[in-house]
């Protein structure tokens, strides 16, 4: 396959970036999207040009490190992570525009790499339970019904890749926060800190400069883990309850 790539290049966070155009003439449909970029980088290296910086780690779709805006869609045209996207999803002669996640809370570090430290700080504000673990307790001591356990597992699959923020017209991280709040809120261990968790996480979210949710649904459509939009309803409900109880 022959491809035309339009890629955002930016030397560092202080510099002004711009789109650059590259040609690739021999792309195999069996390559992953990131392998295609690796091939482009080998070309650039051979020519003595600066290779394109992009994030990746496990390349198995489970770590959440990779994430590119591909032709205006977070992680590209398939419901998966960028590393699990393959070139067979594109056609010979395609023009592919590749941009970093765009959000002021995710500043560009270089080219396609962004700093998602804002997510870490949101998690620091309560995306955990403060309990001494000790040895594993007897499982039957703390019953959790099947429906809640399933839902908690499903929303716990969030890998924090940031696609929800990238896709949201408001640059909101509501789906990311709501997945964690719903996950912990469904389980008995999450109850003692439930109200302070939602208040502190939302406050940090706002402080980081993310926008508000307008219930548009772009986030859930972009999510590689298919976290459903109704978790944001749970977040709103928990916050409403917290306000009522004086938090």
């Amino acid at each position, binding site marked *: 396959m022959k491809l035309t790539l*339009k890629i*955002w290049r930016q030397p560092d966070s202080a510099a002004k970036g711009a*789109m650059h155009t590259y040609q690739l003439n021999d792309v195999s449909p069996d390559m992953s999207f990131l392998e295609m970029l690796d091939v482009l980088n080998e070309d650039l290296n051979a020519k003595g040009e600066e290779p394109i910086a992009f994030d990746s780690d496990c390349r198995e779709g489970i770590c959440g490190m990779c994430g590119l*805006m591909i*032709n*205006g*869609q977070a992680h590209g045209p398939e419901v998966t992570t960028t590393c699990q996207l393959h070139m067979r999803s594109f056609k010979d002669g395609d023009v592919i*525009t590749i*941009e970093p996640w*765009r*959000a*002021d*809370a*995710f*500043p560009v570090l270089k080219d396609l790499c962004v*700093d998602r*430290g804002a997510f870490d*700080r949101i998690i620091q*504000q309560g995306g955990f339970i403060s309990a001494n673990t000790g040895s594993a307790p007897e499982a039957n001591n703390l019953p959790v019904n099947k429906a809640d356990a399933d839902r908690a597992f499903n929303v716990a699959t969030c890998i924090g890749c940031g696609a929800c923020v990238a*896709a949201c*017209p*408001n*640059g*909101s991280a509501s789906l990311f926060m709501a997945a964690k709040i719903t996950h912990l809120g469904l389980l008995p261990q999450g109850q003692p800190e439930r109200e302070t968790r*939602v*208040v*502190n996480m*939302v*406050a*940090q*979210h*706002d*402080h*980081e*400069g*993310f*926008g*508000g*949710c*307008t*219930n*548009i*649904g*772009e986030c*859930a459509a*972009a999510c590689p883990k298919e976290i*459903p*939009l*109704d978790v*944001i*309803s*749970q977040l*709103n*409900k*928990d*916050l*409403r309850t*917290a*306000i009522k109880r004086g*938090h």
Partner: protein
Amino acid sequence: MATTTLVKGARGSRSTVALKLLMAGSGLIFIGFVLMHMYGNLKMFAGHDAFNTYAEHLRTFGEPMLPRTGLLWVLRIVLIVSLLLHAYSAFILWGRANGARSQRYAVKKNLASSLSSRMMRWGGVTLLLFIIWHLLNFTIGKINVAGGATNDPYNLVVDSFGTWWLTIIYLVAMVALGMHLHHGTWSAMQTLGFTGTEAARRRAKTAGWLVALVVAGGFSLVPLAVLFSLITK
């Protein structure tokens, strides 16, 4: 606006979600209001006397316990306060959303968002301008664009919608209102936390369609009926 500091002493009432709750609550008041307003307008089909009697009843409702126009003013104050809260929250959140992505995408696709959801902000501004005109037209100024008398509510409505361009303005406003209600009804349910399951989410989306069609359709009947001479003086 990247930062490395952690927020201390957070209050739920100071969050963007609290602003959304204000919008949802005031929005529900508006849904109740437009449903009642639409119902009242349909009295136009019952004829001159029935409509004017209804208009008068709105002023004498609750007498003698309440003064004349007492209940009307209570409702008006509730609506004015709701409008201020709704618009205030909307503009704050609009500004925040603009600030959240100062560098735009070169290419951005919409995958799941409805046209109504993307039109909420400018549609809301359109409705605000329409409400100002509408109040000047029928409540505060009583402007008769046909040049006739303004002291008879029924005749003022007939004169107004007998003017084709005014009817078009109203019908365009009803499209804007329908779209605002289509996304707004569902969005209010989601913001208030009533859509925690997939089934509840589907019901809220259906409610959005229903409210939009009933209200915008019901309001459009009277102008259309006047324009096509089904309602005459």
